[in-house]
Every structure is written in structure tokens, then in C-alpha cells.
């Protein structure tokens, strides 16, 4: 066995460094009937990495995220291991363990800024509460107030002192999402989860909010886990992309590889559907067949029914999982999109 790693091995881009978040063979089931909705997901998010999770509606991406971070009551972690900074969380009492990290190591930005702020609480108080919960600043203290105003300024709220005293419904959707981001940033997390942070916003605001999240996390050195169904937004924003379909993780691809080298047939099919400036309407593809919902299971590939390359083995072979969690991964049994070298 090797002892301590050599000093040059610990630079921040080194693949051998400890992942911030490391999921191994994670299975998520419904509390009601133990039905396994998300199966065998293995992936890792490195410190300072921006990792995207993409999937169609019903693919299980929100269920997956909310369960892994203890924010879903109807589901539980039925198998696998979750490590944060190299420390494994217990499977028994998982939710309690992960909830202790919320508001400390882990920050969260929910989907809909119109309902994610408490309507009857002043913006300032929602920030000072976050500061109190993570850092113990007394909520009415000048210290908490100054920190909150500084955060509002940091996320680009004009007149932050005024905003501090206002109620959420005095702000537009984009401004509200900025406030939510300020709340998440106030707790100095190492990992920021953004669960469809721009879905409820118009296209211009989407880009600006996304830029704010990326720019702030780069400056503060946070890793971001971005969940979205907006492929173009993800391609422009993230370093790597995990693709969920039918509750299976089908592909982990570097965004640089998309369009440049072979990726999983499902991911390829998804990106073929994205309209672009250089595409004519007739060139925009659609995937034949109906999408499969989460909970497909571990026998066969969930995409086999719609895949142009599908063979008999695709329907019967056990699900390929991302055991070594390298930079890229493809669950395709035919080897499509697997990285060689």
C-alpha cells in the first residue's frame, strides 16, 4: 500500500483528489411501497466542479436530488453509499445525518423563486435567519444585518438596505432568485445545489441568474450541482453532465465531448433535439416513442425501447454502473460513448 500521496498530487485539478460528493450505487425507493425509483447511481462531484444532472420530466432527477439531500419525505435511500469530503454517511438515519449538513456544508436553491421565499417574512429576516442557523449570528444583531446587506449587494440587488426591509412580493422573479442565492451563499457552503434554478424565469433572466450562480461559486470556490432539463443552458454552464433516464444514470460526459466525440446514444439523441441557429426546423430531431418514467429497474437499459442501436442484449443485460467514477461513463452495454483512454 502507498502511504501519503505525493505533494504534487493534491493540486485542485487532479483527478486523484478526494471528491467533494461521492455517490456509489445509490438506490432510492418510495416509502409507501418500497418501489425503487432511482437505481444504481454512482457519480462524484469534485471540489469547485460544476456538475449538471439532466433528464426529461419524470426521469427521477428531482426525486434523486431531493432524497440525496434529505429534502424529500416520501422517499428514502434504500441502498448505496454517500460520501461527503470522504466521510461516508450512514444508511440508517441517513436523512437525519444529511440534514445536519444542510445550511452548513450544503446550500440549496429551489426551483420556483415565486414560492421559495416566505411571503410574510421580510427579506432581511430570511437572510439573518440563515446567518443565525449557519454561523450563530444573533438575528437582530448589527453584525447579521451588515452581513445580510452585503450579501444582497453581492448578488446584485439595487438598494440592498431598502431590500432588507421589504417583503418578497415586492420583487420580480429574477430579483427573488437573487435573494434566494444570497441566502444560500450566506451560509458559506462547499456544495451548492441548484434544483432547476431558472426554470420559472424568462430566457433573458435565466442567463443572468445562471451567470450569477457560476460567477459567485467560482469566486467563492464552491462546487455546484445543477439540475435542469434545459440542455443548452447546461452545456454552456457545466463541466460535466450526468444523464438520468428512467431512474438510471446512463451517461456521465464532459460537456466538451458533446458533439466532439461519441457519447451515450440517449445523450446524443437529446442533444439532437436542441434547436440551434445553424439548424433548420426539419433538422431538429425528436426521439421516437414515449419516455419511460423513473423506476425502470436494473434489468436492461431504460432507453432500449427507443434507441436506434438497440439489440436484444440491451433489454436483458443488467444495468452497467459507474463503479470507478472516472471523468466519463457510459452505461451502454454496446460500449457506445465509453471513453477509451
Amino acid at each position, binding site marked *: 500500500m502507498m502511504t501519503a500521496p505525493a505533494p504534487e498530487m493534491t493540486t485542485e485539478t487532479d483527478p486523484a483528489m478526494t471528491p467533494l460528493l461521492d455517490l456509489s450505487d445509490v438506490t432510492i425507493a418510495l416509502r409507501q411501497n418500497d418501489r425503487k425509483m432511482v437505481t444504481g447511481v454512482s457519480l462524484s462531484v469534485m471540489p469547485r466542479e460544476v456538475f449538471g444532472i439532466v433528464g426529461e420530466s419524470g426521469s427521477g432527477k428531482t426525486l434523486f436530488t*431531493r432524497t440525496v*439531500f*434529505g*429534502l424529500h419525505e416520501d422517499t428514502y435511500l434504500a441502498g448505496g453509499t454517500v460520501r461527503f469530503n470522504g466521510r461516508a454517511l450512514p444508511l440508517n438515519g441517513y436523512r437525519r445525518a444529511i*440534514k*445536519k449538513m*444542510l*445550511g*452548513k456544508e*450544503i*446550500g*440549496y436553491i*429551489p*426551483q*420556483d423563486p415565486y*414560492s*421559495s*421565499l*416566505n*411571503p*410574510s*417574512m421580510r427579506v432581511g429576516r430570511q437572510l439573518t*435567519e*440563515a446567518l443565525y*442557523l*449557519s454561523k450563530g449570528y444573533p438575528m437582530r444583531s448589527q453584525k447579521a444585518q451588515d452581513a445580510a446587506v452585503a450579501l444582497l449587494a453581492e448578488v446584485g440587488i439595487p438598494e440592498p438596505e431598502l431590500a432588507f426591509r421589504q*417583503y418578497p*412580493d*415586492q420583487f420580480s422573479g429574477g430579483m427573488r432568485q437573487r435573494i*434566494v442565492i444570497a*441566502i*444560500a451563499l450566506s*451560509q458559506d457552503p462547499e456544495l451548492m445545489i441548484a434544483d432547476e434554478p431558472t426554470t420559472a424565469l424568462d430566457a433573458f433572466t435565466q442567463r443572468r441568474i445562471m451567470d450569477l450562480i457560476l460567477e459567485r461559486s467560482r469566486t467563492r470556490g464552491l462546487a455546484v450541482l445543477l439540475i435542469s432539463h434545459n440542455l443548452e443552458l447546461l452545456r454552456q454552464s457545466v463541466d460535466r453532465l450526468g444523464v438520468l433516464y428512467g431512474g438510471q444514470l446512463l451517461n456521465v460526459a464532459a460537456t466538451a465531448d458533446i458533439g466532439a466525440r461519441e457519447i451515450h446514444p440517449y445523450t446524443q439523441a437529446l442533444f439532437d433535439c436542441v434547436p440551434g441557429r445553424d439548424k433548420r426546423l426539419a433538422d431538429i430531431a425528436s426521439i421516437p416513442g414515449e419516455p419511460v418514467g423513473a423506476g425502470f429497474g436494473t434489468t436492461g437499459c431504460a432507453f432500449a425501447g427507443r434507441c436506434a442501436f438497440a439489440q436484444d442484449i440491451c433489454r436483458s443485460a443488467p444495468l452497467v454502473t459507474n463503479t470507478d467514477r472516472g471523468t466519463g461513463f457510459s452505461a451502454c452495454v454496446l460500449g457506445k460513448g465509453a471513453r477509451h483512454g
Partner: protein
Amino acid sequence: MTYILQRIAFSLLSLFVLVLISFLLSHIVPGDPAYVAAGPNAGAEKIAEIRAEMGLDKPVATQFFIYLGDVLRGDFGTSWFTHQPILQDIAQELPPSLELVLVAMVINLVVSLPVGLLTARFNGSRFDDLVRLVSIAGAGLPIFWTAILLQQKVAADWKLFPVAGRLSFEHRRFEGQTGFTLLDSLMQGRLDVFFDALAHLMLPAFALALLFTAVGVRITRTSMISEFKKDYVTLARAKGASEGRVMFRHVFPNGATPALTVFGMQFGWMLGTTVLVEEIFGRPGIGRYAVKAVTQSDIHGVVAVVFVVGLFFLVANLVVDLLLYAINPRKHLEG
């Protein structure tokens, strides 16, 4: 500010409608009031004289404005069985009823709000099922039946509370300035009277509160459930807030708002329901006064009670609305 003025203007309009309805009530009752007032042995001449005296020979519109003026001055006429001005009767009978309603309302709120919040939090649990069962049963029990049962079992058989009345015999001469026995006894430092009055209030207040509490729990639960589903609850949890903080600091203030509107209306309904409870427990009050007025065919007494109950209904709703506005001025400006 505009909202407050609008709300007050609306209340005044409702008050006008209330006066109109109470006026019509006294005019659509079958039988000639002058005939009844004159008594069985009066001749046609005497009846005509009384009719002129009561203003019944004037056009209906004129009669209404005379009535409106009287009501605004607090003149509801003279009772036919107490031979006092009805306003004076009401002033005397209202405090015991309000006391009963306030205690019942306290029971209602103290049970409904926390139980509603907890059943919403543990929606679908055994506890939720049990509470649902009890509240459906509670909402289905007729008040007079609950009252009689409580009186028979808890008061007469088990002797835990007094059977009837407002105060025990030895305190019968107790007098106070406000007419609210609980308040007066405290102001005079008479704790014995206070606890005696409270003991007399418990069963009637409980009987009165049961139905309203059953409804209150359900209403609170429903509005809290919809709050628990909102993203701000997820964000609060993601901030690391404890479940207690999520429930009491975040969900409760938002979920209580729609429920409070219902509680405001319940206050007025309760005052109208005191009739049953006061009669059974032999308590003085506006409900019992109404029963007497009805049995004595004292239409002015009945109309006055209807008017006063309606007035309190309007006031309670106005107070709740202004209270909600004070808590969160923003909500009303948009909605």
C-alpha cells in the same frame, strides 16, 4: 390605508343592510303588531290609536327611516315582558353571553391551531386519522345534546362542575362595573368568585366550542397542508432550520391567516348559538333573552337580538381583517 377605509366602508354598508333586514323582519311577521300590542280586549278605536302611536299608519319607507333613526340612537323600543327599554335589557344580557363566547373561543383556538398544525405536519399518520375521526364525530353532535349529556354526566353524576347558573348561591349578590363576572372579580381581587364563575363557564363553553373546534381543526389543517407544500418550507429546511422552527416560524404565520378569517366568522356564529347552551345551563344571556322574547311574541326584543348578534358578527370580521392587515399589509394590496 385605502384598504382600511374600504374595509370600514364595506362594514358600514353591511350594517345598513343589517338594519334593513331587521326592519323587514319586524314587518313581515304575520299579525298586526298594533293588534297584539293593544291586547285581546281592545276595540277597533284603541287599535287604531296604538297603530298611529307606533307609526304603523305611515308609508313603509317613512317607517324605515324612523326605524333607522331609532336604531342609530340605540332605541329598540320597550320590552313587553321586562317593561324596560330593550337597549337596557341587551346591555345587561350581553356581558354573560360574550363571556361564554370568549371562553369558548379560547378553547377553540387553543385546540384548533396546534392540532390543525400538527395534523398537517403529520398528514396521513395514525394521529391524523384519529383527529379526523374525532372531529367528524364532534362536528356531527348536536349542541343541545352535548350540552344535556355534559350536564347529566359531568355535572350531575360526577359532580365535577356546577349543574347550572352563572355563579353559586353564596355569590349571588356579587356585582361589578362591567358585567363580565370574570373581569369584575379579578378587578375586585375576589379570586373565589373568579374561580366559581370559571367553573360555571366550563361545561357550557365546552358544549358551545365542540362543534366550532371540530370545524376549526379541519380548516386549520387544510390551510397548513397547502403551506407545507410550498417551496419556502423546503428552503427553510435547506437552511438548516429545525422542524419546530419550520412549523412555528414559517408555516404557522402563513397558514393561520386564512384560518383566522374563519375564526372571525365563528365568533358571530357562536353568539347566535348561545341560545341553546344558555337555555340548558340556565345562564342569563342574550340567547336566553331571545327565547323569552320569542315565547312572549315580543317582536322588538327578537329584532334587537338579531341586530346585536349581526353587529358583533360584522365587528368580529372587521377586527380580524384589520388584524390580518396589520400582520401583513402587503398581502392585501395585491389580492
